[in-house]
């Protein structure tokens, strides 16, 4: 599934785009949990907003980050995502709401 499809499903704003195609999702805020459990080539839904979020995505090979609940990305997170070719989306939906929408795709 591509970014356009994900963005449409959860009414998301695409802050950093990419041509990533993913099949799996992961939800979580504690970075160690995410790093230990998120599948490679996945889309990660979170409310965490700092540059380490991009660092974790790089190491766990997460391709798309979705910041939920209206969280606006900090500038250093955005630039790090651009640098690492990781897509960054924002949505006003809660993590739960967005997960339900994406799970039904």
């Amino acid at each position: 599934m591509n970014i356009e499809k994900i963005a449409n499903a959860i009414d998301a704003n695409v802050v950093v785009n990419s041509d990533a195609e993913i099949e799996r999702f992961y939800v979580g805020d504690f970075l160690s949990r995410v790093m230990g459990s998120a599948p490679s080539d996945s889309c990660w839904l979170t409310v965490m907003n700092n540059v380490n979020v991009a660092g974790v995505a790089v190491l766990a090979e997460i391709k798309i980050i979705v910041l939920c609940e209206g969280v606006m990305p900090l500038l250093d997170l955005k630039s790090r995502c651009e640098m690492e070719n990781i897509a960054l989306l924002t949505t006003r939906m809660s993590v739960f709401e967005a997960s339900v929408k994406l799970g039904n795709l």
Partner: protein
Amino acid sequence: MEDCIKLHYVVDGQDFVSCGRASEDVKRTLKSLGISSQVIRKVAIAMYEGEVNMVIHADGGIADVGIYADRIEIVLSDKGKGIADIEKAMQEGYSTATEEIRELGFGAGMGLPNMKKYTDDMTIESELNVGTTITMRVNIV
């Protein structure tokens, strides 16, 4: 002597922004050597957790990585306050990180357990108020 690529990093204890850069560099190096992605992921996760620990608890430290034909060895050493109870520290969910650190998404008490989980061997040597050295090995299969 056994052939080996050695990598050496100084992990800055004051800098959460650059935290993880050593792990990412190791990851890039392993990728360029054609190491399998499963092995790379294990090394990257274990080393990142170690880096984060050194920044949170020890004001930084040193990371040495040796890449051999059959394994990758990672040695993380710091001059921090040491681990008072290693058994407790190895329990999932146990953390002494501050609220400030938790707000950044760290301090879930999964650092050492993740390092153990993703490596084939891990030893911890720690002395209170002297420092900690963690040696990890990931086999290349």
